[in-house]
């Protein structure tokens, strides 16, 4: 079977990444913003693995694995922060937080 060309995977990765970016910038719910960030991580993973297959180099896959790990750590800490900040509020809205103004 003919292989799927590399840059199709990369285009897909770019599209998924941009979806994540726009999601992050347009949503106000912090949880949803974090999920958009997860989308961006995965888009990057896809690109790494595609390159790994293309150049027959395991480094891409290993790095993707590390990305998963770091994303997990980041998600944990980010969620903890979100919980701390929004625990007693009625609406979880990122635009309510502007203490660092100025």
């Amino acid at each position, binding site marked *: 079977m003919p292989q799927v060309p590399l840059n199709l995977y990369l285009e897909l990765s770019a599209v998924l990444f941009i979806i994540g970016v726009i999601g*992050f910038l*347009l949503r*106000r719910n912090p949880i949803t*913003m974090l999920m958009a960030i997860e989308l961006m991580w995965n888009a990057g993973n896809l690109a790494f693995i595609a390159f790994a297959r293309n150049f027959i180099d395991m480094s891409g896959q290993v790095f993707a694995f590390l990305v998963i790990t770091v994303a997990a750590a980041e998600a944990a800490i980010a969620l903890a922060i979100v919980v701390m900040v929004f625990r007693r509020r009625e609406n979880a809205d990122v635009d309510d*937080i502007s203490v*660092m103004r100025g």
Partner: protein
Amino acid sequence: MADFFLGAVPLILLFPLIGAATIAFFGPYAHRSASAFIGCLSIGLSFVLTVGAALVILPLSPAQQAIYAHSNFVGYWAHLPPDLIISFRLLIDPLSLLWMLIITGVGLLIHVYSVGYMASDKNYRTFFAYMNLFVFTMLLLVMADNFLWLLVGWGGVGLASYLLIGFNYDRPVAVLAARKALIMNVIGDVGIMIAMFLMYAHVGSVAYQNVFGHVSQIGTSALTWIGVWLLLGAVAKSAQLPLQTWLPDAMEGPTPVSALIHAATMVTAGVYLIARAHPIYDNAPAAAELVAVIGGVTALFAATIGCVQYDIKRVLAYSTMSQIGYMILAVGVGAYAAGAFHFMTHAFFKALLFMSAGIVIHALGGEQDIRKMGGLAARLPFAYWTFLVGTVAIAGIFPFAGFFSKDAVVDAVLNSHHPWLFVLAVITAGLTGFYMFRLVFLTFLTGAYRGDHEVHAQTERTMTVPVAILAVLSLIGGWIVLPHHDELSVMLSSTFGDARLPQSMAEFSGALSLGLLLIAVAGIAFAWIAYQWRPQIAAAFHRSLGGLHALLSNAYYFDTIYHWLFEWPVLAFAQWLRDAFEVDAIDSLPALALRAGGYFASLSNRWETGYLRRYGLTFVVGAVLLLFIYLFVAHGAAVGAAP
């Protein structure tokens, strides 16, 4: 043994410094008597070491002294390009040893006296720290072997004087007096500095050895200028005309301060300076002439003022000014040994006078006006007799110390072919007898006690013993120079051996001595007549010579003149600047800077909204731009090209 004392010379300098530092840092944590003890101990140790060093150095021949006199404590302190090397060496030749003995010896006596005198003062510990500091800086001044360290000591004694005059800092008068003294002293500092610049310009060094050794290379006019600028320093420090106004005001300081600093030691620094720099003055006759004239005129000037003062300490201050005039006169005519001799005797009897006056002031609870005294001879016998000894000494009555030293000075003036200066000196001698005994009569003898306070006679030994010692020294101190037996000149011969005039004081003119004695006695007699026997004579004089009296009472209006000449313009200018300038122009500048900064900050403030999503958008926009630049601008990846 000799090596020990020679090696211990730096300690002479260090002990007072360590004493001051110890009292300053640890004094508050101990009982106040500990500070007094340390203060006296440090000076005492320095005195012992000085005596030891003197016993080692003085018997040596001049050639040997030249080898040993320069301490082995050498350090390169500064190397200022291109070729000025300043080292820190201590010089202990007979001249500096004489000053060191007086500074530490009389200083020790005054420190002990202060233990009793200052006992009721709340800043007791600080006083001893300051006094030790003073002794340190004064020793540094006389032990330096180059002009720079002399200047350091010079400034240091000025500082110590400022601290001690203004010791009672809650009295505004004292603070003003301290400031006045400091300002005038600094004027003198500038003079010495300029002299040092000239020395460096001509000889390339400021060390005594180099400057004095190459005096012949410096032209006479340059030498004259150096001598004049050094004289400015001496005039400021020794309170001679025209920078003399600070000394009477300096009496606002405690009596031990007046005794030590403004009688025995600091004010004689000018005399030391000129005596030390005698090679310069020997070869610059115009400068030496100026020195002598200033000294002679000041001596008479101060004596006239002293005749009408009513504050005990002021009279003594003017008499100090007058006697230092004698010393300056002596070194001005080239009689350096005579000037040093008079310095020594004056230290004895002037410190004595101040200290016994202090006993009187203490007994009267602080009263210093002699119009409110009288008849104290019976109630304060110890003070009376010691004060009398001092007065007799200063009047120059045989066989007290002042007789010999004043004779030596006047003798030298006569032999130096300065007839007018001789006349000044003689008249001053008569006036000295007059005003000093006027002081004795009004304070101790005339009639009944006129004052309001109760008289508390004290017998504290810390105060009486030093005074008694000084009384004895005021009697026998002059016997170091007797006809055909001049020990002092022999001692000082290594320093002054190269002076232009022979320095021996053994040849007294009998007629001159007798004449001076008679004139002094005449002055005393006149005072007795006017104040003791027929007091109405004095009162009549005061009424008839009203204008002259006012002139003298106000010290020839020097203070007034200086105020209008110097103080008032500066103050008026400063006030004008403040009113016209500062409020509008200068004070508004910080506000302007504030607003400008705020404006620029507000421009960039708009980005810091605090909203997370805005920050995210900023990221993305920036990343996009960078991506664009990286892909298409920097690396020229054309769209649509084949790889």
